[in-house]
């Protein structure tokens, strides 16, 4: 599921290169803060998410995950570009291009689902990812966060559904 449709595409001056005096954790916090999902979380809790995330690089053309496969992670792009690809029987469509700062794949953090899209590295990419087990363990420690996160996630889903519905309506009218 991609609810990365309305991604904020501000410029990110932060690079993933490690500056002398901020640690990787602080750096992760900066990235996470700029996403809609994590922006509502108080800083001291966000630091725990930042601690439990990991980084990983993908080569251009590698798939982060494939359509139809189970995958239990949410991703935040640190550098490079990622394409969301929907495959049909005889062709595939690039649904969206994502840039640094985009957070995607997050529904997998809430439930065991199969991916509706594939995600492919359009360039060499570095991402920050967190897996479902970790994500849930943190929520279990701080249940008050659940509401905030669910709120944002549901809004994302609704806005996406809206778009799909509008598109369908549009198509119907045309026909």
């Amino acid at each position, binding site marked *: 599921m991609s609810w990365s449709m309305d991604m904020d595409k501000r410029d990110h001056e932060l690079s993933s290169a490690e500056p*002398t005096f901020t640690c990787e954790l602080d750096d992760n916090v900066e990235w996470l803060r700029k996403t809609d999902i994590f922006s509502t979380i108080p800083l001291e809790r966000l630091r725990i998410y930042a601690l439990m995330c990991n980084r990983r690089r993908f080569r251009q053309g590698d798939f982060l995950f494939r359509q139809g496969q189970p995958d239990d992670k949410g991703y935040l792009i640190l550098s490079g570009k990622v394409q969301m690809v929907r495959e049909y029987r005889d062709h595939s469509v690039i649904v969206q291009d994502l840039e640094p700062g985009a957070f995607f794949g997050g529904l997998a953090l809430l439930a065991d689902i199969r991916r509706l899209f594939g995600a492919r590295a359009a360039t060499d990419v570095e991402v920050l990812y967190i897996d479902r087990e970790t994500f849930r363990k943190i929520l279990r420690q701080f249940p008050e966060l659940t509401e905030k996160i669910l709120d944002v996630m549901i809004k994302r889903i609704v806005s996406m559904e809206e778009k799909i519905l509008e598109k369908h309506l549009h198509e119907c009218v045309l026909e």
Partner: protein
Amino acid sequence: MIHKKPLWYWALTRCRGLQALLLILIVLTIFFRVFPLEMQKRIVNDAIRFRKIDALYLYCALYLGAVVLAGIFKYAINVIQGYIGQRILYELRTGLYRHIVRLPIPFYRRTAPGMVISSVTGELASVGDFLGGAIAVPAVNVLTLLTFGVYMFTLNPLLAVLSVAIYPFEILLIPMLQKRFNRLNSERVTTTRKLSNVVGEAISGIQEIHANAGYALEARKVDRLAKTLLDLRHRMNLYRYGIKFTNNFFQSLGPFLLFLIGGYLSITGRFSLGALVAFLSAYEKLYDPWKELMEFYQGYQDARVAYRRIQEAFDVEPEFPLKPSDRAPVALQGAVTVQDLMFEVEDRVRLLDQVSLQVSPGERVALVGLSGSGKSTLAMVMAQLYRYTQGHVYVDQWELKDLTKIDVTPHLGFVSQYPFIFDGTLKENIVYGRQAALLNGNPLPGDETGEPPLEEILRTLEFVGLTEDVLRFGLNTVLDEAKEKALGERIVRLRQQFRDQWSDALQDAVEFFDAKTFLDYSSVAVNIIFGYPVDGGRPCEILPLRPRFRRFLKEVELEEPLVRLGLDVVNRTVPLLRDLRDDPFFFRQSPIALEEMDTFQEIYEHYGAAPLERLPPSVQEVLLGLALRVVPGKHKMVVVPRELKEAILKSRSLFQQYCLQRDPNAFVYYSDTAYLGARTLLENILFGRLKEEDSWAWARITEAVVDLLKRENLFHTVLEIGLDFPVGSKGDRLSGGQKQKVGIARAFLKHPRILIMDEATASLDMASQNRIQQFLDGEIRGKITVISVAHRLETIRDYDKIAVMKSGRIVEIGRYDELVEKKGLFYELVHGHG
């Protein structure tokens, strides 16, 4: 059957030679015990009275000789007696255990493991202690008593009669007390067994206890039993010491009479003084054998209680004999016919009812149905794990009930949903069935030497999809010295090839060791040493304690910055994790372990903002230790300043010089051309470390490593090493999926004609499930009868038969399409699952 024999049987029939020797020794000892008394008498009456110095010397020498010999014989008697007891205990214990493991599964549904354990260990031990002396002790003591009695009688019949006259009272009184004691003791056995159960259960359920903080709840269970035990033990003591008291009391009445009457006789001149002295000594000597007899009596009673309780507990027969007595074991071909099968458990609960099913050799049959419908029960009956009450199960032409274990087990593989994994190595677990057949005297061809050939095991690993896991275990092994010698050089030779071919491609997954760069994925300590201590142990733990190392750090001006780093780590880590102490999960990426949080929180609160000079030396040492174990790439909350990294890097060569001068054999330094004994196989191949233990990093390097190992003919060697992976108690070091694969491999390796699987692939991921399905569909199709309790209906599409179960009956039977078309229960199951 061992548990059916009476207690005395063991004492009377075992170690007869030794027992005879024992009796001879006993008679001799008794002689040497009485002999000094006679000497005593003669010393007084003869030597002293008539002032015969020579006679005095002679008698004293004889006295001494007799005493020494008596002592030596007593020692020999004790040793022999102890040995006999332990011999019999050994036989009892192994025999009982052999019986216990054969008891039927339903027996273990109502029997708790703690009770069995406590029977085989503690309770039986008391029986053994008793049996060692069962003949010797009464023999010695009764004989001693008699001898002394007779001796006393010859000295003075009247006195002798008087001094033994009190014993009959004791003999009446003591058994009454003992009977009460026994009743309490039996209760104690029951309570102790319960206690073992509660403790055993707590250990198996420790996860649940932690998850609910059920500490007080568990403690309360033990508390209750412990209190009962306290009470029982106390009451038992009242009786036990009551018996002692009675005994002592009567015993001390004796001298009183002797002094009174003996004194009178002696004064009136009717009894010599020497005889009185001897008589008193003799009377005193009665005390020991009498006391030992009493103790023997109590020991006998304890042993009787324990033995009876064990007999009662295990008075059950195995459901199936082990070996056929009148024919050779049969070879099964794989046909299974179930006819009007009925299976009842206690209270006439009918778990299977009128079940009929026909399976030809090589057919594949699935059992499906809602949970609780009896699938597992049917599977277990067909696997000869339960004895059925009515109806028939035929394998080929034989009634399953009448076949022995040795007929069935080699040809029948059974995989349960949660296969049990024994503590030991992975290999031991996989070859379990083969090994068992070998010990039962019915080995598969090729096994006569002891183990299935490696290739066969590896092939099985491949079928069940364990190869990659085993490879990983192998690569993560730190070799022991013997293997290291054989393999080390070849591994070192791989390094260069690996570098040339793969170093660029794996840059993001591996950090290669390099003397000239700072290693972000090794600890600060390793960065300084660039090696490891020869004596083992982690550098970051042992180094801070060594004054020589501290001096070095001072010399190169690293000590202060490292302590500062340690304090910085504390300041960054403690506030982050202090609220998360109830879940060890969050401490995986922390340099401070969960157990250490208290220490470091204290440091944080007291010295967090203090200047370094104010830190007491002990705190400095702790902080230094912390700094040394920091792995910058892993501990994300930490930042090691660039200048510090450079300084550490610079110290590296200085450290080697420093050590080479003072203690050249303390460390092994990383060297491109030597095998690193303290590092894993993988690290030796890479000459580096994985940056993350995550699966993707493994996936990345696996291809490269496998390619290389295969080329160098080392792949099987590494797998063989991986097979020696210790799986931990109950296989705790394996994942759920891995355990299932081990269970399947164990069954496959027997090359069974019939394979029964009870949701055997339920914990596997899709890929592994498909792989095993492919094997069943391809390789062995038609050769092995497969009966499979299926949890995923799409895997049984082309099975020959599907039996749909409901409440213990088979309600539909047919092929997939037929059943779907029928729109019955199966149709519902398919759509419910869909």
